[in-house]
């Protein structure tokens, strides 16, 4: 068995696998066969099998109902937690108790299973790279992940055939990677705004020890939300400007998953462009009309301002918990793709009164911690904290905190409890996580039942022990001290998978696995063909009048040939036919783009004239 440990960054939008090169001592990310370092965290459940990464991302708009993205936001959560945002997700989330379940591609899957597909693809990358099997990994999670979210991440690893030896908090790992370059001492604030999660951590760096003083965040706030507000704004704008066409064709874009997915992707692209440019033009072709508009960075900032504002409260709370003020912070480090948005940088700078350090390479971040655990680095130590308070529900629905938030881990706590009814034989221990006083306002991690001998109320002495390991994962034990027999506890995680479920999923993952590379490449070729067919069909519908009869006929012939090839199993034939369609539509695409640009200029002139009056 290999003792190699790889580092995995399992992101909301993209994931990657990295290691530290023994020869150079530098972190290296392992690219895929085509040299791409990032693996989009997108999984498509097609009739032909499961597709992951770039090919899955490409079919987001075409198969919205069967293509899962941003699954990290659903990890370790219940339907109630996500039902608001489920309205905006094109894949179906099943209502029910316990952890979230998705209905995609004619089957039911849980978020850990979807994440496992991503992890497995990364594991295979690493195995191809090293030429040997890889079984151990360090996986980073947002510092503000609760116990259920951490457990779900560990489960995903197991389903993928990986032993997750360590769960590392993303900002902590980032500070470590940062500290590698500048071994200065001082207090560092790490502001990490990713695709779906936000974290802030305050650390003290001294003598090679990275001590987390406090952490805070929001596991449901990130670039995805920026995209969503922008997409909804576009939707409104389209409805306002093109209501004539929409009414004529009886189209309700909000109910069209394909259109909504297109809007989301266009919003994301515009957001990225507006991070480096002051203005950009959006062009979105729809059946019957083309939507164009110019957007400025100010437009974007007005829309995302409230979201950026939501990150500032956690920053202040982390400072307060660390017992520090903004002036005590020596360095501010930015991590995560969403920190490229200029408004984010501005707000962070205002809050801490310091110019933040730019982006770190995410590859370094996970690789370094994996290296430490593999025994490669011995002079550095991470002292992390538990992000949320942990306790037990006691009489009156009040939470009795055993371990307060921002306690350095590993940690343990012990407390004595007793019963409130005579002759009680069953004690229900409800384990909770959160900062609120009432159990109903906190996150339920699980219930434990303890059988005891009947005794008058107040007589039993029940010792409850909490132990949080270095991964931030909680273990609970309960023991009645007066009775002789040791009591056993059955764990019923509220938002997790039980052992049997994980076991079944591990087996299933072998059944689903595309062990045959040939099959997988065929699936990818078919997906590519589908994408091209959709685009060609749309281009023909919109621009048929712009080209002559001969050209139209040539396109239609190529399309028919591709359809025929796609129904067969010959990958090369599908490839060739796909290329042929691409070639045949090249001119038409140009003509359409020209028309779109002219239209955009025309409409701008119109708005400018209107603006002057």
């Amino acid at each position, binding site marked *: 068995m290999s003792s190699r440990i790889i580092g995995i960054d399992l992101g909301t939008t993209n994931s990657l696998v990295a290691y530290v090169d023994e020869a150079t001592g530098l972190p290296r990310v392992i690219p895929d066969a085509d040299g791409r370092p990032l693996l989009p965290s997108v999984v498509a459940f097609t009739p032909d099998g499961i597709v992951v990464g770039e090919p899955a991302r490409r079919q987001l708009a075409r198969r919205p109902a069967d293509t899962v993205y941003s699954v990290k936001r659903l990890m370790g959560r219940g339907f109630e937690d996500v039902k608001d945002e489920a309205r905006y997700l094109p894949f179906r989330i099943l209502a029910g108790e316990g952890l979230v379940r998705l209905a995609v591609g004619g089957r039911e899957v849980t978020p850990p299973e979807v994440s496992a597909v991503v992890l497995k693809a990364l594991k295979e990358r690493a195995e191809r790279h090293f030429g040997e099997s890889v079984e151990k990994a360090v996986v980073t999670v947002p510092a503000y992940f609760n116990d259920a979210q951490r457990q779900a991440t560990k489960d995903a690893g197991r389903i993928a055939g990986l032993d997750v*030896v*360590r769960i590392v908090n993303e900002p902590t790992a980032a500070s470590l990677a940062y500290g590698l370059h500048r071994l200065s001492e001082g207090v560092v604030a790490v502001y990490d705004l990713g695709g779906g999660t936000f974290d802030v951590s305050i650390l003290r760096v*001294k*003598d090679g*020890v990275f*001590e987390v003083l406090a952490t805070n965040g929001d596991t449901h706030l990130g670039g995805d939300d920026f995209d969503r507000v922008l997409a909804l704004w576009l939707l409104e704008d389209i409805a306002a400007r093109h209501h004539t066409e929409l009414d004529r064709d009886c189209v309700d874009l909000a109910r069209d998953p394909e259109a909504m997915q297109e809007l989301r992707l266009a919003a994301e692209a515009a957001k990225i462009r507006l991070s480096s440019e002051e203005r950009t033009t959006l062009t979105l072709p729809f059946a019957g009309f083309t939507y164009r508009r110019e957007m400025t960075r100010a437009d974007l900032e007005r829309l995302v301002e409230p979201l950026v504002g939501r990150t500032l*409260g956690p920053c*202040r*709370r982390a400072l*307060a*918990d660390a017992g520090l003020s903004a002036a005590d912070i020596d360095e501010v480090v930015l991590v995560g793709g969403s920190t490229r948005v200029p408004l984010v940088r501005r707000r962070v700078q205002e809050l801490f009164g310091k110019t933040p350090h730019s982006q770190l390479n995410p590859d370094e971040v996970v690789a370094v911690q994996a290296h*430490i*655990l*593999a*025994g490669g680095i*011995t002079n550095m*130590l*991470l*002292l992390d904290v538990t992000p949320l*308070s942990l306790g*037990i*529900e*006691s*009489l*009156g*629905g*009040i939470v*009795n*905190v055993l371990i*307060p*938030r921002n*306690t*350095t*881990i*590993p*940690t*343990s706590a*012990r*407390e*004595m*409890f*007793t*019963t*409130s009814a005579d002759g*009680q*034989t*069953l*004690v*229900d221990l*409800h384990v909770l996580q959160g*900062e*609120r*006083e009432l159990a109903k306002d906190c996150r339920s991690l699980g219930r434990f*039942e303890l059988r005891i001998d009947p005794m008058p109320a*107040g007589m039993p002495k*029940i010792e409850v022990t909490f*132990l*949080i*390991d*270095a991964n931030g994962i909680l273990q609970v034990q309960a023991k009645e001290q007066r009775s002789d027999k040791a009591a056993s506890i059955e764990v019923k995680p509220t938002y997790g998978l039980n052992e049997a479920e994980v076991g079944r999923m591990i087996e299933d993952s072998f059944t689903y696995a595309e062990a045959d590379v040939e099959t997988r490449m065929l699936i990818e070729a078919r997906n590519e063909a589908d994408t091209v067919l959709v685009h060609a069909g749309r281009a023909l519908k919109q621009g048929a009048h712009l080209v002559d009869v001969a050209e139209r006929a040539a396109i239609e012939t190529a399309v028919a040939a591709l359809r025929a090839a796609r129904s067969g199993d010959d990958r090369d034939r599908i490839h060739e036919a796909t290329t042929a369609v691409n070639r045949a539509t090249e001119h038409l695409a140009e003509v359409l783009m020209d028309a779109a640009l002219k239209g955009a200029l025309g409409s701008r002139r119109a708005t400018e004239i209107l603006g002057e009056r």
Partner: protein
Amino acid sequence: MFGLPRKLAVDSAELQRRFYALAREHHPDFHQAAPAEERARIEATSALVNAAYRTLRDPIARVEYLVRLEEGRETKEGDIDKPKAPPALLQEMFEIQEALAEARSEAAKGALDETTRATLAEQRESLRARLKDEETRLAGPLSARWDSAAPAERPAILAAFKEALATRAYLRTVIADLTETLGGDTEELGRAIEGRHGSAEAPRTRGGMGGHIGAPHQ
């Protein structure tokens, strides 16, 4: 554990230095290859080191720990000799709580009127100042007295510690209640709730004492 003299006055830089050394020695990260049993033991030691540092770095937590140690109590629970706050303070806190209950029922009907709000906010500010004074006294002069006291003087200082701790607990609870009623921003509330959690020995004003687990689900 840290090789420092048993005194309430602690050299915090030296404590931190020794903590980092111990944490490094006992952290599970450096014992990955050890057998499971050994790893569990390392984890327990590491948890103990962390807990010890957490207690010793905070002057108030140091006093609380000392009181427990002197009374031979192992955990926060099971205190035989309940700490008592001065009766005058109890009376005063009781009055504030009553005014609060009134304000709450008023708030339940509609918005809190501005005069009541202002009075409550003012009260909270003055209580906060007193809390700060109490903590400074506890961590400063009282702690120093203990360190230099002869064994015969110690029981008296211990009693003073307990009274100060109880006073602090009452003040924190009432401040938290005031904040809740005033409906401060979430940040404020977070701090208030922490105040509640942080004072494990604080008498609860509502919802009964902790330590009882609900009846089973039949």
